[in-house]
């Protein structure tokens, strides 16, 4: 049952990316490029997502535990440091260059398009590269 619910969450996440326009890398570039014919519509993805998640998040964490596991595992790190800012900056540069962030990259790769595949394969290589360079930070398992 847990497996089914986690699978359904992933499926809904992907469908949401598709419906919203986030899997269309050209549209994402049209959002991030304000010097062309700017298309601000993708800002509403964040509006819709945060509206729903913020409201439900508050209700969910009032529970003593999740339905199918022992505890809520939320990020506990609060440090704002150069790695956070620098890492996010690198990510943003790649996002503006290619038009893909991780979720849309993975989802779009199933269409076997050249760009989506190239992005996703090199993203996985970039992740592995970082794990190899900085193993100390990658033993903790999942994070945000």
């Amino acid at each position, binding site marked *: 049952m*847990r497996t089914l*619910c*986690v699978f*359904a969450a*992933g499926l*809904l*996440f*992907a469908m*949401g990316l*598709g*419906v*919203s326009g986030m*899997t*269309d*890398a050209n549209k994402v570039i049209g959002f991030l*490029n304000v*010097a062309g014919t700017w*298309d601000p*519509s993708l800002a*509403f*993805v964040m*509006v819709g*997502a*945060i*509206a*729903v998640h913020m409201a439900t*998040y508050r209700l969910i964490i009032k529970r003593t535990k*999740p339905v199918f*596991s022992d505890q809520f595992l939320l*990020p506990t790190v*609060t440090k704002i440091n150069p790695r*956070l800012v620098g*890492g*996010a900056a690198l990510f*943003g*540069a790649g*996002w*503006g260059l*290619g*038009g*893909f*962030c*991780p979720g849309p990259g*993975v*989802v*779009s790769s199933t*269409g076997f398009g*050249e*760009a*989506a595949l*190239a992005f996703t*394969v*090199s993203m*996985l*290589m*970039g*992740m592995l590269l*970082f794990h190899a360079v900085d193993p100390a930070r990658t033993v903790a*398992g*999942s994070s945000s």
Partner: protein
Amino acid sequence: MMSDIINATIGGAMIGLAASMLLFFHGRIAGISGIVGGLLQRPGKDTAWQAVFVAGLLTGGVILTLVAPATIAEPSTRTVGAVAIAGLLVGVGVRMGRGCTSGHGVCGLSRLSKRSLVATISFMATGFATATIIQLFLGGTV
């Protein structure tokens, strides 16, 4: 434009709901970079659910490809070389900064995390700057 805004809002709401489902049922944050990156590490207690979540993502992608292929843009206006470099930057960046648009942007901001707010401002700033600079100085083609 209006229909784009409606689609973006509905799709966003679906993403927010999916993140809430993962939290409600399994108590985890729906950060795609953490989930995908986790699968590239030594297998552990998170491996199974992470693999199932990614299977859900991929199944969603297949459904989109079959039902609404136009939602998955192809061909890209960027060259394959540029997209490959973009992938490397994203892969290194999201692991270094511990999150992406979903983990920091959607989940972190919803939790009112200052750390996620700082990360989101950072990747939004360089995202807008990069795409805009490519337009202004390279005519939008790389």
